[in-house]
């Protein structure tokens, strides 16, 4: 499960840390283990111009967030969500889904995680935060910038 690519991203995560400016933020937790991620999205028109995040979690969840930033920054929201769908399909595929490296890049390293059902949520935590944050952007929701940090207690 611990591919070298995963360990590389874990040791040297790409895009880590929370940055300004951002359009929306999402806070997600994994209730079974208590792992957390706060993830921010900045859009430039239809394009994802930045993803920044802070995680409290295992190597899988941290590496997954790092790979996520590589895969979605610079892409359109629509394309990003397609990559997300492919990653999710692989992660939840119980090892039966053959990943497409052209779509998933380093993300294919997480195919092994799919064989460990208890760890699938770890791999998906950052992606679920990304999906939620995109929905919360003013461009998507038509609303004002939303900051979810204040509602941490309510969610956990």
């Amino acid at each position, binding site marked *: *499960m*611990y591919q070298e690519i995963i*360990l590389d991203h874990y*040791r040297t995560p790409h895009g880590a840390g929370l940055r300004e400016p951002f359009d929306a933020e999402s806070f997600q937790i994994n209730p*079974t*283990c*208590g*792992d*957390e991620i706060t993830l921010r999205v900045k859009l430039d028109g239809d394009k994802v111009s930045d993803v920044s995040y802070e995680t*409290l*979690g*295992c*190597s*899988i969840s941290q590496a997954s967030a790092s790979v996520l930033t590589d895969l979605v920054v610079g892409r359109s929201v629509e394309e990003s969500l397609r990559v997300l769908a492919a990653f999710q399909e692989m992660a939840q595929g119980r090892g039966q889904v053959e990943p497409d490296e052209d779509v998933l890049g380093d993300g294919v390293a997480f195919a092994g995680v799919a064989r*460990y059902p208890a*760890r699938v949520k*770890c791999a998906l935590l950052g992606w679920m935060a990304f999906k939620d944050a995109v929905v919360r952007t003013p461009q998507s929701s038509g609303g004002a910038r939303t900051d979810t940090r204040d509602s941490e207690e309510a969610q*956990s």
Partner: protein
Amino acid sequence: MTTLEGVNVQKLRADFPILARTVREGRPLVYLDSGATSQRPRQVLDAERAFLEQHNAAVHRGAHQLAEEATDAYESARARIAAFIGADAGEVVFTKNATEGINLVAYAMGNSSIRTGLGPESERFALGPGDEIVITELEHHANLVPWQELCRRTGATLRWYSITDEGRVDLDSIELTERTKLVAFAHQSNVLGTILPVAELVRRARAVGALVLLDACQSVPHMPVHLGELGVDFAGFSGHKMLGPSGIGVLYGRAELLAAMPPFLTGGSMIELVRMERTTYAPPPQRFEAGVPMTSQVVGLGAAVDYVGDIGMDAIHSHEMALVQQTLNGLASVPGVRVIGPRDLVDRGGAVAFVVDGVHAHDVGQVLDDRGIAVRVGHHCAWPLHRRFGVAATVRASFHVYSTPDEVTALVEGVQAAREFFGVVS
């Protein structure tokens, strides 16, 4: 080593078929997760099967021979389980698990608080705004969330004793008051292994007239416990943590209190007289066992009590404490490993939680799993306790009578291997 503290472990392990299997590509199973659920010996599995093959019927109904035999088996198990914990048979209520037992008390108190149509005897269980329920910061969610919910429904206030850096209850952190109606706490922490000062907490609760509920999930399966002598009012534990079946738990309640307490679940079996307009209730324990109860599970738990009773709870506790000492010594020899909870054997039971600097608990657990070692990782349903110690998750090793020194050695080697794998070896 085949014997440890008077327990012939190797001989006894033959009673547990699951311990002979391999996992993760042929590795022998090293099961160090008995605090979550224990494994069952053939004696328990056989008792369940024999009951189902020979005596199965709905208990406490019907007058045919099987109904008599099933009821005898059920009530015989109740009597043996009651004797095992120092209680009378009428003080043992069968529930689905310990969580349901605690909820039973919480809902009975909630029902008492509504104060419509109940007799004056239920008034001692009633709560309202200004009243308090007191717990501790180390509780399992099962002994926390039901009380949060009861407070929400009644307007009462939840308060808690805080926990010291050593993992002990800080008895000076709060004072009980005349408004404290219930003090609920774990006998032994499911994470830290700490054994709480039951006698002192009971004394303080008595001084203000509060009831006491003991979460005995981690004590009754592992050490001699005489609930009558402890002087608590209620206690709950689960069968599956004491070599017995899942789907069966026990709520102990002092006879006088159960007699005064209104029911939680209502329906068949728990009634005395039913008319279309209203119903009167059966005496305890039947009042709290609505519907056709678990039967083979109760019989299995009776067999589990016989099994551990034959070995002796003192011997089981001594055996586990030898393993805890070995674990504490072994982990202390690995740099960067920090045990959360007591580092000695004083007032301690058989659960050891730890963190490894630079390696998340999930990752430690994964490396151990690849070596065939089953431990628990995460917050172990005690999330506030983990926040208290500033950690998101811990690794927990826990034991039972079948655990061996070789398994502890494998654990310590596995933790060392996890450090090496993630490159945190200095």
